[in-house]
């Protein structure tokens, strides 16, 4: 192959991950296998450790024990400068509260990293940003500043921004939690489209219906441990563990 193919997803292996804040154990030996190009939904009760796990994968949190492997690169507890630098350029993250840069336009937000980190010229970065905004249906608002955009629009710009550096893994932290039902479906639609590009996606979500439909696998985290993990439909329709049964009964009820 001589032509550049779109970056394929890479697999993630989480092994015995443990993290505490002081004496409180937030993650207590979490192990997960996320094959390349699949979508993993992390569900479970609040305080169960989903978001902390995601932030550990993003390299935003350190952990005390265990490891996280992206392909053949492994993060362990302690100093990981080399692996973290590698991770930064290949893992994109989307936040519940968008965290768009308020002093930059939609286009500026998406073009920022390619220009400042990737070293692209202004025109090139702009073209790439426009293409991504088109992909998320926000090309009509390229020059708008975040303050003028609705929540759903902001989140779609945030998705385009997270894709700007060509990541192999996309981490989504409750990205529809702050949205109303209508815009929620717009954002989830965009996410389904990206999924078909072959990226590995890990998303923390409360949208059980969406997880069942769009995720390949679901892991239910409770009390810092994986209570149940498997194919999305199996876990959601026929939970085996009592912890999963209790949680699903509550959220589906």
């Amino acid at each position, binding site marked *: 192959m001589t032509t550049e193919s779109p970056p394929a997803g890479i697999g993630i292996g989480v092994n015995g991950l443990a993290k505490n804040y002081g004496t409180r154990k937030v993650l207590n030996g979490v192990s997960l296998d996320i094959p390349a190009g699949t979508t993993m939904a992390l569900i479970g009760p609040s305080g169960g450790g989903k978001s902390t796990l995601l932030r550990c994968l993003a390299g935003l949190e350190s952990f005390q024990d265990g490891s996280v492997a992206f392909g053949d690169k492994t993060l362990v507890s302690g100093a990981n400068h080399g692996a973290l630098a590698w991770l930064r350029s290949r893992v*994109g993250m989307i936040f519940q509260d968008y965290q768009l840069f*308020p*002093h930059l336009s939609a286009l500026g937000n998406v073009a*920022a990293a390619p220009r400042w980190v990737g070293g692209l010229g202004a025109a090139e970065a702009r073209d790439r940003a426009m293409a991504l905004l088109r992909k998320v249906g926000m090309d009509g608002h390229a020059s708008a500043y975040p*303050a003028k955009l609705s929540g759903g629009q902001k989140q779609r710009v945030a998705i385009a921004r997270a894709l700007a550096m060509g990541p192999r893994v996309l981490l989504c932290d409750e990205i529809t939690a702050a949205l109303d039902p209508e815009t929620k479906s717009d954002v989830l639609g965009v996410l389904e489209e990206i999924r078909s590009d072959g990226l590995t996606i890990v998303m923390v979500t409360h949208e059980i219906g969406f997880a069942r439909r769009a995720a390949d696998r679901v892991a239910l985290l409770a009390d810092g441990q994986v209570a149940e993990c498997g194919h999305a439909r199996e876990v959601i329709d026929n939970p085996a563990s009592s912890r999963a049964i209790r949680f699903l009964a509550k959220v589906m009820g």
Partner: protein
Amino acid sequence: MAGVWPFAVLMASCALSAGEAPLRWGCDEEGGAPYCFKRQAARGFERVGFEVEIVQELEKRLGRAIEFTQYPFDNLVPGLRKKDFDLAMNGLEVTADRRREVSFTRPYYLYRQQLVVRKGEARFADYEAMRRTLPRARVGTMDGTAAERLLASAGFEVAGYPAPTEAYRDLGLGRLDAVLLDLPMAISYAGKDPALEFAGAPFAPGRYAIAVHPDAADLRLRLNKALDGMISDGSLRAILERWGLWDGFQEAHLKGSTSEASWELEADTGEGEWALSRYLPLLLEGALVTVQLTACSFALAMSLGLLVAITRLYAPPPVAALAIAYVEFFRGIPVLLLLFFLYFGLPAMAEGAGWNGVGEWITPFVAATVGLGLNYAAYEAEIYRASLQAVPRGQWEAATCLGMSRRLTFTHVVLPQALRTALPPMTGDLVALFKDTSIASAIALVELNKQYQILAKSSLKFVEIGLATAVLYLALSLPLGYLSRWLEQAWSRDHDD
């Protein structure tokens, strides 16, 4: 009965003196040798000087107590007009401008101007030689003196000081080419300084007299009578001799010095000469210095303030503690003190350490820029710190996840947002700094406020020139306020939620 009389007389005189409150004497004892100054005595300090002795003699002759009132020298005439005291006596020269405002008694001393230079430089032999060889020389003198007016009309660059000590010190430090002051000050300060010497003979004579309010004709009469008595019985001569001030000139002219004729320096400057067209260019010159000082010191305050804020927020704790100490220190000390230290203290310290020439390099403008800059940097640092902290942590995380380094995140993501938050308080500080530059007049920098003081005190047109100065200050500060509001609105249109 005979024994009752002395008692009755005593009672009567007590009643008389109790009825008459002491006269208040306006005088500046700060750097006031040999006129009136504080000297260390066996117990604490005592007030001494040839004028103090004249006043003691006058108390006896008037039969009335005279009470000292500290008042800045160059405000003595306005102070007398306001009746803050009854008489002004402090080497106050009789001039035509002052005669319009206050009444003078007969003279008690004939002053002359003495040029003082650094010893051994021999650049010019006397005042006339200085006029020829160095017509733009920087010459120090005191605010509101006849010497100041003489120098200004001759076209020299005049550095006006509130007291003679600072003028002679700056001459010693090489910041001035010469100092021109009344002979008594030259004798008292420069005469004792081994680094300084007199250049030429004293010249440009004039008269010191006691000033009273124009309404106080009776007081003036009584003072005149007392002074005449002191001259004819030799007690004034005795006082002046004790202070080394009696000379051939006093001998020849003091007695007959009451006529107004032939006192060259007292010549009328003429009301018409203080028209707007004369003082406005000078005020504009001062305004330019004020603007330059504001711009330079604020630029320093912004860059240093940012450095301090960054250190405080992101440096390891021991280093961050230095930033906290900086803010607390410079917020806690008065700017005036800082300016005096930088301008007068630092060169003295440097000289003590064997570095000469530091005094020449620290000009009033440099000292004022650094002093105001250091002070305002403390305030700017606090503004930047609060603004930087107001940027959500999520912004750092979002940038990190895009592969941006901490430095890049700071310069491209966090700082631009923080500066927007900081802008309104910053422009507020800029306006405050603009007005605070007037403090620099204390170290002889002729900015707008100092120029106003010089012009108003020379012309005694406090209201008119004051209004013109206020208009200039407003014309410069109001646009700053508008600019800040406009910037705020322009940015909030795009960015505010």
